């Protein structure tokens, strides 16, 4: 018995040592290797599955349809992070070693926590960290964070845009209105507060902040409080189970759902369907539209799943908000690759540094999106060293009980108000880490 035990143990450690050593040499050199530290289990596994499903499906789509970018096919590998920071780091370190050239090309972790944990490492490894709609928002300042890109829009800009939307609804003024900000008590939920406070000053509405402790599966008290406050609107920064719970709890205390407007992490099918009827009328922000009406989405279903290379066993998730978001993220990544190749030489894989330049000089126009069959899927993006965000636009969508209906055009947040906040916070960061801000040329 003892001998068995010891031998089991020995074998275990031996195999690990073996695999961990030989393993990093498996990826082929001529591909454009993309590291995908994804998560499909744990509290937020649902969201991860939809997002990364879309992301990967689009990469296969590009590979199948036009054989990659200028003949350079994409290859990728996933690593389960479980939305856990330490595991995220391990995954990043493991995946980046897979390709000497690209170091992983562009890292999407879809987790604010993980993006914080690997920020310095991506910087050191010279590989761009793409945080589309999450992560370190003051990375908008490219002179301090050359390798970090909070693309499309940040929490603060989003909050500002939501405020703008509400004031439009109210004939251009929120003066004297009461707005409650109900948020997940974490980095994610706390980022927008500065923006909202600034907005409340200039728009003269009364702002009440109510945090919800993780995981947020019990919000009775908060909603009683809200009903007591009886605000005109609730701006809602939920994530995972907190979203359904909030909608249910709102119904419980009889607070009208069409007065609640969520962030884009609180605006996917996964968030509303479990809440059933309680979700009807609930609004949320989004930076990509849902549905298969967008040509490219339909085409992916046809081409990729036609070829049996789809990432999902059932196609139900195709066209959901998060799936389309994954596709959007992939589109931006692919276009950046294309841009980099145009500058540094077509037909060969690009390095992290070259990708960085591409992401800093993105200019994705509607025309370009049209040519990709992605018209209106996501807003135009034009980045620069001063502006790693590149858009700051969102749409507002509303849940009609069966699907999300877009009820606004692209709304841009108050850049003049918000971006200085980023600059300031970036400067503090630079001071703390004694970095001298400077834009990288190429």
């Amino acid at each position, binding site marked *: 018995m003892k001998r068995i035990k010891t031998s089991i143990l020995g074998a275990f450690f031996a195999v690990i040592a073996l695999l961990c050593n030989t393993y990093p040499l498996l990826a082929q050199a001529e591909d454009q290797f993309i590291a995908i530290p994804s998560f499909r*289990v*744990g*509290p937020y*596994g*649902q969201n991860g*599955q939809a997002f990364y499903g879309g992301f990967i499906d689009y990469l296969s789509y590009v590979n199948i349809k036009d054989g990659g970018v200028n003949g350079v096919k994409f290859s990728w590998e996933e690593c389960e992070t479980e939305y856990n920071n330490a595991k995220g780091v391990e995954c990043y370190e493991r995946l980046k070693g897979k390709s000497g050239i690209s170091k992983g090309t562009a890292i999407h972790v879809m987790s604010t926590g993980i993006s914080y944990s690997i920020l310095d490492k991506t910087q050191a490894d010279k590989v761009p960290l793409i945080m589309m709609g999450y992560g370190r928002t003051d990375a908008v300042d490219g002179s301090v964070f050359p390798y970090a890109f909070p693309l499309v829009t940040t929490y603060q800009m989003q909050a500002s845009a939501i405020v703008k939307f509400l004031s439009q609804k109210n004939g251009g003024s929120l003066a004297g209105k009461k707005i409650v900000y109900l948020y997940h*008590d974490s980095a994610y939920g706390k980022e927008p507060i500065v923006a909202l406070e600034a907005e409340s000053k200039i728009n003269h509405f009364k702002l009440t*902040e*109510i*945090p*919800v*402790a*993780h*995981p947020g*599966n*019990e919000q*009775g*008290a*908060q909603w*009683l*409080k809200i*009903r*007591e406050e009886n605000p005109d609107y609730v701006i809602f920064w939920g994530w*995972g*189970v907190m979203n*359904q*719970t909030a909608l*249910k709890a709102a*119904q*419980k*205390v*009889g607070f009208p759902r069409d007065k609640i407007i969520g962030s884009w992490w609180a605006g996917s099918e*996964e968030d509303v*369907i*479990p*809440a*059933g*009827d*309680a979700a009807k009328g609930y609004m949320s922000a989004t930076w990509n539209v849902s549905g298969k009406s967008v040509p490219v989405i339909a085409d992916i279903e046809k081409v990729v799943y036609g070829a049996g290379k789809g990432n999902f066993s059932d196609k139900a998730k195709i066209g959901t908000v998060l799936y389309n978001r994954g596709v959007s993220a992939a589109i931006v990544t692919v276009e950046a690759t294309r841009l980099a190749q145009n500058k540094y030489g077509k037909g060969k894989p690009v390095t992290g540094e070259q990708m960085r330049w591409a992401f800093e000089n993105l200019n994705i126009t509607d025309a370009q999106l049209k040519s990709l069959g992605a018209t209106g899927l996501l807003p135009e993006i034009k980045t620069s060293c001063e502006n790693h965000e590149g858009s700051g636009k969102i749409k507002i969508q509303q849940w009609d009980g069966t699907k999300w209906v877009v009820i606004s055009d692209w709304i841009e947040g108050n850049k003049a108000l918000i971006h200085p906040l980023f600059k300031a916070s970036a400067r503090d960061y630079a001071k703390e880490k004694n970095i001298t801000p400077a834009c990288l040329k190429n």
Partner: protein
Amino acid sequence: MQFFIEIVISGILSGLMYSLVALGFVLIFKASGVLNFAQGAMVYAAALAVVGFIDYGMPMWLAIIAAFIFMVIVGILTEKFVLGKLVNQPPITLFMATIGLSFFLDGLSPILFGSEVRPINLGIVDEPIQAMMDLTGIGISKLDLFSSGIIILLVILLALLFQFTKVGRALRAVADDHQAALSLGIPLENIWAIVWAIAGFVALVAGLLWGSRNGVQYALSLTALKALPVLILGGFTSVPGAIVGGIIIGVSEKLAEIYIPPVMQDAFGGNFGGIEGWFPYIFALLFLLVRPEGLFGEKHIDRV
């Protein structure tokens, strides 16, 4: 005042929801001295099983029965292959084993029943009772009221089971003294299997109620964290303790969430909401310092 009453009521109602989860812990701890950390995972598994079987095309009632059978099997297998193999190990080892079990279940049940976040519809629209609203202005959620009813029913059921059935008597005997029970020829393994089955049933009820509340998803396994303070307050071995403890925790937690943060805000500035994560624990802890034997436990003397 009316607001206060409202808070207290909602506190009681959600407190009972905690009691329900705590109940599962108590049953198993009473019978086998194991703090079953997997109880939360069992709640998740049970709820998933229900929605899963519905997806396989079963009607609600059948799905519930099927889920129950599934839970019973899980319970028996746990007894056979986990705890049965760990008899006479220190409690902490068993505790660790149950944590391992919770990982196992969190992995297994989504594979069997899909990991989509799905609703459970018990056919009750979760709105405040209108008449009550108009009359007193106090909103009481229908679903919560219904749930509380179910929970009380369940407790009565268990009480009857323990009092008047052969199994129940055996259970109590085991709970009192393993050795004695053994010497009386009560087969511990079977008893424990039964206990796990019952705990599975409790988990199923919890899964249904919590699931209809927040939707069926991984976070259901985190309900365990809501139950633990209830346990230290009410005692690991006392069913009434679990109920009363749950209510106390529920109410105190709600009141704290409403009334403490403003006070702290005045003291330190900044926003101090979202204390529900820790408050129940600190509360239970302080209570324990005053009364180490818990709500219903009796003082014991160290014999030497």
